[in-house]
């Protein structure tokens, strides 16, 4: 496989995953904020969407419509859903001969759905339709990837991109929501609303039902964080995704030996180190731990780039 193609596949996987998280986060944040009793909290919920996406608006006090447009359909904002889908599709287009026709067409239809979505409808009444539509298109693309691709480098690089991005998005969503919770606590309005915020994190990651099942109890701060970071068999946990990054890297590496200093060795080290951490170790400063983990994931990306994508 060409290095350039591997690079494009990696980013195709990343953008696809990113678009889904943006759409889901936007949907959950917006609709959960509607029933919040305090206007400050509603504002905070929307600002949190901007924050999670990594968008800064020139306007200090953006209106709801401005925020929704910026995160959703603003093609000039590189962090919008439209931009993520566009970039993912451009990456797919530049390697469409490596993909199956089914994967390409599914991605192209996803792009057409997003790019043709009427902005005025989206801003006023189409938010749920647009975001759930995007999430469904994502599911179709992923289904076609699983169903129609050979398990070769094409698939592995796509999966590495997907899992890396998902690990990143899980952490970004947690960081963003923890900032919200901080604001909630400042209002001193009681623990019910805080608990509600932890539930929202789980909703943002389609994790609430499985979290309840896993702990046989209702979600709280401790088990939410533990679940999303360390559950080895839940697809939206950081540990699960880093594990798959490692697995696919091993499948790509034909040599199979893991010499010290090799890519697999370095990634294995990060992952094992992460896996054996406990909440106790960092419970006083969870955001710092999350940030630290995020930085390590970015380092992994650099290592993968140096090993495979240089041309």
């Amino acid at each position, binding site marked *: *496989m*060409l*290095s*350039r*193609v*591997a690079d494009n596949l990696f980013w195709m996987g990343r953008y696809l995953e990113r678009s889904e998280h943006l759409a889901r986060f936007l949907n959950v944040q917006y609709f959960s904020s509607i029933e919040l009793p305090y206007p400050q909290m509603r504002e905070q919920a929307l600002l949190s969407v901007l924050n999670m996406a990594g968008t800064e608006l020139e306007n200090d006090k953006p209106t709801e419509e401005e925020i929704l447009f910026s995160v959703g359909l603003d*093609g000039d904002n590189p962090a919008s859903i439209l931009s993520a889908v*566009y970039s993912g599709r*451009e990456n797919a*287009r*530049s390697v*469409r*001969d*490596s993909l199956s*026709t089914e994967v*390409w*067409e599914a991605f*192209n*239809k996803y792009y*057409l759905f997003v790019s043709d979505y009427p902005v005025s409808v989206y801003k006023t009444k189409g938010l749920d339709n647009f975001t759930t539509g995007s999430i469904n298109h994502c599911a179709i693309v992923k289904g076609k990837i699983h169903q129609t691709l050979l398990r070769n*480098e094409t698939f592995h*690089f796509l999966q590495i991109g997907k899992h890396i991005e998902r690990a990143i998005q899980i952490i970004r969503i947690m960081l963003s929501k923890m900032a919200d919770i901080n604001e909630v606590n400042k209002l001193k309005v009681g623990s019910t609303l805080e608990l509600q915020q932890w539930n929202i994190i789980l909703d943002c990651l389609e994790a609430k039902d499985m979290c309840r099942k896993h702990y046989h109890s209702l979600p709280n701060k401790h088990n939410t964080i533990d679940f999303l970071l360390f559950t080895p068999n839940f697809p939206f946990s950081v540990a699960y995704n880093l594990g798959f990054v490692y697995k696919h890297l091993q499948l*790509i590496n*034909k040599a199979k030996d893991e010499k010290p200093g090799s890519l697999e060795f370095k990634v294995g080290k990060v992952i094992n180190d992460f896996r054996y951490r406990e909440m106790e170790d960092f419970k006083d400063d969870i955001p710092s731990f999350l940030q630290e983990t995020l930085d390590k994931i970015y380092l992994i990306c650099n290592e993968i780039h140096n090993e*495979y994508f*240089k*041309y």
Partner: protein
Amino acid sequence: MIMEASVLKLPESELFTDYYFKENTFDEVFKKNSPANAYYNRLLSLISSYSTNEFKILNESTKKSFISRGVTFATYSDNPKGNERIFPFDLFPRIIPQSEWRVLEKGLKQRNRAINLFIDDLYHDSKILRDKIVPVDLILSCSNYNRYMKDFKPTGGVYNHISGTDIIKHNDGKYYVLEDNVRCPSGVSYVLANRDAMKKTIPSVFSNFNISPVSDYPEALQEMMHSVKSDKVDNPNCVVLTPGAYNSAYYEHSFLAQSMGIELVEGRDMFTDNDFVYMHTVYGAKRVDVIYRRIDDDFIDPLVFRPDSALGVPGLMSAYRKGNVTILNAPGTGIADDKAVYAYMPEIIKYYLDEEPILNNVPTYRCDVKQEMDYVLEHIAELVVKPVDQSGGYGIFIGNQATQAQIEEQKNIIKAHPRGYIAQPTMSLSVHSTFIEDENKFEPRHIDLRTYTLLSPDKEFVLKGGLSRVALKKGNLIVNSSQGGGSKDTWVMEE
């Protein structure tokens, strides 16, 4: 001149309301004062069974399917992210009866085989020049002569592996070759995409008609690529070289690579070392043996041709001349599709093959020959003037559509650079019923036929049918997609 519709026997359908006969033009479907061409009968009755509304819906859904499959080309002039457009597709297929096709196919093989021998001769002994069949100065003055090809024989002795010969039907009912394209002829992906679209839109026709398939093209192309590999390799690494995803023909490049299951590469994916070509893969360098390049000669190797080219591979020509990689089409083939050289094609065929040319050539006047230029200047209003080295329909001057001022301007252009132009009588491209969206009915529009011939060292293959291109604008004679043309599915059919 437009005649009364009553001279035509039209199907009883509102889709053919006011369909008219163009005087002095061959209509592929209808005949004046007699029934339509018999081989169109069943298709006509099928099409007339649709109401206007039904047909419109079919037309719209076909367009949508091209968009969702990404069978598009993009222009970036007014939008940095690209405006993606489809190549307009007409749902009324063009039929070429098997008996006519057999002659065309034979003629195409003959003509392109002769072109190959001609190119080989020009880069070696130039016998045809010494025998004064083709004038020496014509070749020496050709901007597409490639001095790096001198005395070099490509693997298998093939130069024009892929030829896109353009054919028209004149008002005498005969086919003529209008142009030879032996550099990087494009459009073949649309032949296959059109057939696909046709099958999905009107599936019933394919079970009732005996139509030659076009799906064998990728296989034939791959077989041809293997046939010109170096003897030193058993299992060649064949690639398609594209300028990249922002090229307007990118869909075709990726289609070709995908349909053959081979790698689509860009110049930056490759490098040369010790006169071998390699590509950067995730496992290191991998040798490349056969390159189907979709980049012009000028850009393939910045060390030899344009130094500012970022699309090519430095050192490619050197590796090529060592026989370590095959490039198709060979560099320097443009010498044979020069439009002034075209004038000599009948002589070229006779000279190399000792056969009478099967396909007709359009009489051509060379402006660099004194008497011929005088004739051209005098009769310019009845002639078509073409630049000798352009493609895509650019720079063409049509005398009978020009104003006096334009005529004077064109005369000066010719006089300033006689070798740059040829002139031909205005050929009347045949017309074919074509669905016109603004009118919601069929109207006659001019068409031509881009054919695809593949040459291997000991085999020729012609894609059955080809791309019928339609000039969608009323009265327009230029069918190129870059100038607003569309296309039709083309059926080679048993009568």
